[in-house]
Structure formats: C-alpha cells, structure tokens
C-alpha cells in the first residue's frame, strides 16, 4: 500500500441506530501521519464518527475505507486491531491494577511485557503500577489510556474528548505525546468541543454538525 494512500476515506457515509441517523452522509479524507481534531456541539456526531472509524459501529450506507480495510465489506475485527480507542469514560477493568490492565492488553496482542513498564514510565504512572484502577483520578485514568495505546501501538489513534479532566500539565503532556505519535508515523483523530489551543500541534480541524462534516 502506498504511503500517500489516505488512512481514512469516507464517501456519503451513513450510520443509523434504530432508525435514527447518527451520521447522515459524511465525506472525509484524512492523510496518513496526520493529526485531526473533530469539533462540534453535543450530538453533532463526533463520537459516532470515531466509532465508525474504529469499526465499533457498522456503516449503514455509503462507502468507506480505514487503514486499508473496507468498512462495508471488510473484516471489522481486523480493523479494530489496527486502531486504538480512548473513550472519555475511562476504559478499563476497574478491579485490576494499572499494570494488570496493561499486561492484559500486551498479552492479548503478544507484545513483550517489557513494553508495559516502558509505557508506564512514559506516561508518568510507574509509581502507580500496583494501584487498583478504580482508585485513580480521572486524569490518571486518562494517562493509563495513553499507556494502553502505547503498548498497543495502533496505526490510527481515536481519542474521544481526551482533554476532558486534564489539568494544564496534563494537557501539555498530552500535546507532547501526540506530537511524538504523529512524528512516528501514526495517524490521530480526536474529538473536542472546540479547536485545539496548542501552539505545539498544528492539527487539521474538522467541524461537524447534524451528523455531517460542516467544514472546513
């Protein structure tokens, strides 16, 4: 596959849920190795777009391809292995420790267990490795989510409102990490209510409204 092949290509993509359109005709193309911010009001379709890109929801009509996999006819399980998801709810087994959660991901994907310690150090949670996940603060859970993605090393990072619950230091750390991820060749799509204020990152901003891409 050519490296200039877009990582995401959607043509009139529609996602329906019980007769209600979550996405109502999205046309979108995202470059590999790019950082993209999807903005919009509540209910604009940001999370639905991310879930479609992650193979978590099925395409109802239209066409699409993510990381080289056809959304209409391809193997969604295969697609999911290529993407990483960080939801705004905190996305782990609450009764496992920080390290046990990451070991679960590493072992599931047959990654070296040493990657877990490296990821914990990278996100500043090494001292919390033995802490039960439900005892973490919201910001620490967000860092655990990043460690989970660092262990997984996905081709496409999908981050649903990742800046929620982060203090200024956390936001700055997050910006640094995203810059590194993009430099390493991965693609990132994140949702946010407003455009990023970061001076370090220069993302493409995609505005959504009513389940469609509204601009630019």
């Amino acid at each position, binding site marked *: 596959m050519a490296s200039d092949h877009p990582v995401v290509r959607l043509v009139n993509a529609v996602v329906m849920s019980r007769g209600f359109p979550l996405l109502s005709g999205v046309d979108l193309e995202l470059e590999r190795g790019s950082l993209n911010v999807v903005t919009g009001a509540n209910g604009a379709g940001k999370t639905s777009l991310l879930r479609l890109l992650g193979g*978590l929801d099925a395409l109802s009509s239209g066409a699409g391809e993510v990381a080289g996999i056809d959304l209409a006819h391809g193997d969604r*399980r295969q697609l999911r292995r290529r993407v990483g998801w960080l939801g705004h709810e905190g996305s782990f087994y609450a009764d496992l420790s920080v390290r046990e959660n990451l070991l679960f991901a590493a072992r*599931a994907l047959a990654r070296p267990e040493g990657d877990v310690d490296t990821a914990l150090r990278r996100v500043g949670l090494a001292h919390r490795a033995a802490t039960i996940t439900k005892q973490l603060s919201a910001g620490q859970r967000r860092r655990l989510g990043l460690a989970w993605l660092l262990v*997984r090393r*996905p081709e496409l990072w999908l981050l649903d409102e990742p800046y929620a619950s982060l203090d200024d230091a956390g936001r700055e750390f997050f910006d640094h990490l995203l810059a590194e991820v993009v430099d390493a060749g991965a693609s990132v799509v994140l949702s946010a209510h407003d455009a990023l204020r970061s001076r370090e990152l220069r993302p493409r901003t995609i505005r959504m409204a009513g389940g469609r891409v509204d601009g630019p």
Partner: protein
Amino acid sequence: MIRIARLVAAKDLRIEARSRVLLWQVVPFGVIALLLAGLALGPTQAGHSTAGPGLFYLVTLFVTLLMINRSQSLENAAGTRASVATLGLDPAGVFLGKAAALSVELWITGVVLLAGSVLVLHTALIGTVHALPSILVTLTTLAVAGTLYGALTQGGDGPATLLPVLTLPAFAPLLIAGERSYSAALHGGALWEWWVIVVVALVAYTAVGILLYGVLEES
C-alpha cells in the same frame, strides 16, 4: 484461541478474587436462600432429604443468574467494551475463557451450597459426595450455556431482565437432569442416563458458543 481463553479466564478470576462479590454477596445469598427453602419445608427431616436435590438446583439457578449478569457486566462497563473490542480478541477464546471462569465460580459456590444442603436439609453426606462429579459437570454446562445467553441479552443494548426469561427454558432440562442424577446418587436409581443429557448439552453449547459468540457480541 486457547491462549486468549486462558487470558480471559485468569482476568475474570482475578477480578472476582479482588472484588469478592462471590464471597460476600453471591455465596451468602445462596446460603440464605437454601436456609429459607429448608424453613419453608417445615421440620420433617425426611421431607428435606427428598427435596434436597431439587432445592439445591433451584438455589443454584438463582445464583447462576446472578453470576452470569456479573460476568457480563465486567465487559459492559462504560468505555471498557470499546477499548477491549479494539484488541480484536478471538471471540471463541473470549467465550471459552468467560465460561471457564464462570465454571470455577459456580463450582466454589456449588460446593458451599452442597455443604449447606447436608447441614440444613440433611441430605446424606456419602450420597452427596457420590453425586459431586455429576453436579460439577452440570454446573459447567450451566456456565457454558449461561455465558452464551449472557452475551445474547447483554451484548448489545438488551436489558439484563431478559436473561431469566431466555435462560429458564434452556436451563430446565439441565436442572431436571442434574436433580435426577443427584437424587439417584442419594436414593439409588439410574445415574448415567441423566449424565448423558448433561454431557451432550455441554458439548452442544460449547460448539455453538465457539461458532456464534462473535456474532452475539456484534449484535
């Protein structure tokens, strides 16, 4: 598939050991239910012994429903479902792992309830020990079938209250066969015929689960 099954089973059992839901909630519920069943029968010990196997499996049914819900709720916590889905785990491995963990949990609960049956319902200790292998196989079959039905009712947006309605018709033959083989071990009678029903159901539910669990997860 086996690697993922072991991973999922170890994870579920570790969560159970840490949260102690089984120890402090499910097992006490089962013991109290057994005690109340014994009280409802009155003071005649002979009647208790006859009804013992049926009451044991009735309480086991309630406990099994609780534990199936608990097992599925681990995966359905907010956000966890999406994160774990993007690991792309082999669904057959997930099914076998969750069924194995649920089996171990049911075995532990079953042994406690059997001890309770001997103490509260005065079922014969020797007969209960003889019945133990058939009871463990029946509990395994309930765990396997329960994992399948748990995914069916909670895999999507299905309400958890659907679980008893859907499982009772499927569990009924297993519970009858289990009760008959336990009674046969206590009072004499054909034991193997009832075993066959349970073992055939175990094989069938395992095969269906391996083939269809992924479809149920997606539904």
